[in-house]
């Protein structure tokens, strides 16, 4: 499998970013908990397809994206519900609603865990593609899928709380999930993907390279070449542009 490279990037890229992106691509290519490697790579292809999808473009400019019916311009044979999830999360995340999520679940085409695994992979690809866009370099070729079957692992401790999807409770990251966070010290945005524990591990891995590790998170003097305040300024502006309340 061709590895991600930043050898031709217009500026030198930190080794930890390169390593994190390579690990993400390796995970993408392998079977996950609920999807095969081929299906997961297809999700990545749909992320890229969504940016050129006519329906997504029409919905993006509509007063309500839910008023526009139609079919997505698709790049794969993933279930229709999966296609809609990937395209909407990629192109118009601020207007997702609980009613929409419930309609997706009502199709019967996706389980809640399959949904969470999709989100975990979509956001990783969105993030790595965004990084390349920011530096002004071509997107990385997608990896070749690896053979293998999904593990179908579902953490027994995950329960419905206040989110749309079940999550592992703050004080229940134990056993197989003991590495996800120090018990009692986490945030909902990390627990959000915990129905698929490897999605949390990927989130933490990427965040440590892109932004800050959990170990350093509460040290508000920690920074890289940018000071923490500069990082937080960027973080806040992106969140506001995406109209994210969280």
């Amino acid at each position, binding site marked *: 499998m061709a590895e991600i490279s930043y050898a031709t990037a217009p500026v030198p890229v930190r080794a930890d970013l390169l390593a994190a992106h390579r690990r993400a691509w390796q995970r993408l290519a392998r079977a996950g908990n609920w999807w095969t490697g081929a299906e997961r790579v297809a999700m990545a292809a749909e992320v890229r397809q969504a940016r050129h999808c006519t329906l997504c473009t029409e919905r993006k400019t509509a007063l309500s994206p839910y008023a526009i019916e139609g079919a997505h311009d698709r790049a794969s044979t993933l279930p229709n519900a999966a296609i809609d999830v990937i395209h909407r999360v990629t192109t118009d995340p601020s207007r*997702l609603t*609980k009613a929409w999520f419930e309609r997706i679940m009502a199709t019967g085409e996706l389980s809640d865990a399959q949904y969470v695994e999709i*989100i975990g992979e979509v956001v990783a690809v969105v993030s790595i593609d965004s990084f390349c866009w920011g530096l002004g370099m071509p997107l990385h070729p997608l990896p070749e899928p690896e053979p293998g079957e999904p593990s179908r692992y579902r953490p027994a401790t995950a329960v419905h709380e206040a989110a749309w999807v079940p999550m592992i409770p703050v004080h229940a990251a134990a056993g197989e999930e003991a590495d996800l966070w120090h018990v009692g010290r986490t945030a909902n945005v990390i627990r959000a993907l915990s129905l698929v524990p490897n999605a949390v591990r990927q989130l933490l891995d990427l965040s440590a*390279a892109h932004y800050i590790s959990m170990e350093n998170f509460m040290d*508000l003097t920690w920074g890289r070449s940018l000071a923490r*305040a500069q990082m*937080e300024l960027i*973080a806040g502006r992106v969140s506001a542009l*995406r109209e*994210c309340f969280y």
Partner: protein
Amino acid sequence: MLLRASGKVTGDAFDVHVITEGGTAAPSGVPHGEMLIAFAEAMVGDDEAILATARQRVLIALGSEALVDAAAVVSNFERMVRIADSTGIPLDDVVYEKTVDVREELHLGRFRSAANTPKA
């Protein structure tokens, strides 16, 4: 809202209005803040020429390491906002309590995803 909190640690009083108002707001007080805001806005946008200009400004003023770090942070939050908004998570209780003022000041309750935090 860790911008204001980070300022308290370093003894700086940053103006957070730039978070929601962008370039039309008063300067934030964050060093090179306006340039970094312009770069973040360009990355979230889809105009390659605007992004190229913003990128070059960061590169010239702050150097290649800072450009990489800025791109990494933008792309990190392109990931985080999607996780939050696609899973319907509410704001954590402790964050909710500590950000009452800034949420009101910036009118963050107008965002659709505020509905995921019922008490917001």
